């Protein structure tokens, strides 16, 4: 822990520091640009707090070791970028199915394939639907600044512990490689959430039994509960369901995986809004582009255009009704993102008016305020 105060810090280092402040005690990863500084910093910081840093042989192993450590009771994180995130998808699915808390930082880079190491916001849908199967929810957060990388990494741990779900920090090269001021608070001022642990008689314990909108208390490995974990479709007792005629035995557990997130969406969701109360044009953006959007909106206001900004901090789950409500009085909605249109279609679906939603898509790096301002003037 460092002295509270202001530091000039690299985004990736702020992310690592945030993890340590969140109580992370295990980090497994494989080097990849532009993620490597997170791993480097974790290798320096973790041993000082009695934690484990391990560089695994690949990203497949990194996510699996992270899950193993979390099942054994440690707060655990891994970090990667584009290609590595693709490799981790199966592991993320296992963490969802076994309800294992863990944090995955994905510093987005240009894709598909090796693409390049500069920034893109291309993994929005991969974060949502990257692992196979159609019945799950995930939480993903989008940082816009070095301060966000610190704060949201802590948030990610808290959400992950509370809902027993992997939480993805969807950073991007331009934010992770940014150096700016980070205000580090006193550690005692940070609110930390720890997973609920099983306390009942081991003979009574059903590892996956909980109301549909909650997650069950967890029995960590070695605590005497003799739990069986599997990525297989399973019952509340954790037994695999091996035939279709017995599917109903797993139905509640499998529906709960989505429902525990969906029914708590109001508690999970975080947005930032500026000048939207009377806005005729709203720019929806996230990550680095949201900073450009804010500047563009302020410039537009100076020109007398009633513009506002809505920044998505929680990318997933996507809060349809809230977005619809916030955008209801706007004449036009500009969606600025660095991909071929991913959140764009979520917004279109949410506001249910194709004419109103205008894409401002860029394929690499990030938007400049002028690019966004030009679009605002165009639709004004």
């Amino acid at each position, binding site marked *: 822990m460092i002295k509270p105060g202001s530091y000039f810090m690299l985004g990736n280092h702020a992310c690592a520091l945030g993890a340590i402040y969140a109580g992370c005690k295990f980090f497994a990863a494989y080097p990849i640009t532009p993620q490597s500084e997170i791993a480097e910093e974790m290798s320096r910081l973790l041993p000082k707090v009695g934690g484990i840093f391990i560089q*695994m042989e690949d990203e497949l192993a990194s996510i699996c*070791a992270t899950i193993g450590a979390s099942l054994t009771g440690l707060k655990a994180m891994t970090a990667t970028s584009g290609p590595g995130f693709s490799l981790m998808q199966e592991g993320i699915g296992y963490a969802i199915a076994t309800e294992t808390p863990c944090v995955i930082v994905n510093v987005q880079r240009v894709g598909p394939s090796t693409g390049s190491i500069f920034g893109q916001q291309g993994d929005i849908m991969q974060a949502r639907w990257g692992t196979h199967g159609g019945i799950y929810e995930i939480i993903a957060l989008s940082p816009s600044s070095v301060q966000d990388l610190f704060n949201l990494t802590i948030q990610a741990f808290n959400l992950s512990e509370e809902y027993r779900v992997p939480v993805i920090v969807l950073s991007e090269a331009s934010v992770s490689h940014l150096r700016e001021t980070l205000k580090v608070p006193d550690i005692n001022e940070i609110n930390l959430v720890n997973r609920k642990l099983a306390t009942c008689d081991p003979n009574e314990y059903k590892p996956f039994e909980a109301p549909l909108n909650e997650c069950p208390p967890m029995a960590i*490995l*070695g605590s005497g509960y*003799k739990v*069986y974990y599997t990525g297989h479709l399973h019952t509340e007792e954790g*037994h*695999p369901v091996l035939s279709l005629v017995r599917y109903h035995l797993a139905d509640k557990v499998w529906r709960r995986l989505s429902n525990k997130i969906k029914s708590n969406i109001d508690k999970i969701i975080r947005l930032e809004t500026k000048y939207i109360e009377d806005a005729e044009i709203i720019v929806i953006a996230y990550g680095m582009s949201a900073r450009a959007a804010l500047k563009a909106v302020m410039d537009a206001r100076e020109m007398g255009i009633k513009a506002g900004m809505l920044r998505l901090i929680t990318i997933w789950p996507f809060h349809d009704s809230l977005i619809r409500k916030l955008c209801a009085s706007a004449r036009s909605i500009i969606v600025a993102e660095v991909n071929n249109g991913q959140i764009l279609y979520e917004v279109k679906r949410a506001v249910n008016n194709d004419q109103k939603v205008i894409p401002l898509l860029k394929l690499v790096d990030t938007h400049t305020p002028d690019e966004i301002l030009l679009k605002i003037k165009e639709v004004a």
Partner: protein
Amino acid sequence: MEHPLKKLIKTENLPHEFCPGCAIGQVYHWVARAIDELGIDMNKVVLVSGIGCCARGVRFVRCDALTTLHGRALAFATGIKLANPNLNVIVVTGDGDGSGIGGNHLIHAARRNVELTVVLLNNGVYASTGGQVAPTTPHGAYTPTTPFGNIEDPFDLCKLLEAAGAVYVARWTTYHVRPAIESIKKGIKKKGFSFIEIIGQCPTYLGRYVLKLYEPVECINWFKNNSIRKELIGNLSKEELANKIIVGEFVDKEKIGLVERYQKLYGKI
């Protein structure tokens, strides 16, 4: 009379889904017996497996157990062991899971010398998907995906693990009951990465397709007649050894394990 190992088996999870005469029952029996004979607290045992026939057995042993992802058991196990070094983490895996899709994790776990015990049941095929060729299938063997005979050569897993740095390496077949249990016990006690390969029968696929033997006992007899102790190979020619399964302990050495290295590192910081 109650079976002496009943206390170690989650009988409430029965029935199992293994074919009659499968070697998997033997392997889990031996692992349970090894734990029992060593007197280890079952609350401090974690069995980790991947995917495949062999991986399905962990849920019948009365301890914490995980069926993980195909090939990734060792990565999970590494995370578990480092997170709580007081646990006895035993990986039970098959040849396809452990050395095919999971081969990279196998050699790296051995290189790191993580304090894990790996019991790998080698039945020479991908059994749970229907007996397709595996990295361990003999050259020339006919399987559903080698209809003209296997054109590749199989792994010698014990040599691979020796080269990768495992501190204990042994191979037995399902005929060698007692030596196999002793090896598993040695592996569990070892302060480092131990690897015990069990060549076992899959009567449904290996027996039918490769050995052309239909009864489990015939398969076990075949292992008996076609295996040779490492100590006895001295006078045999290469040709005589070509189709033999060499069994025995190949490595038994001392080397500082990964957990201990972490502890030393913390001492320095």
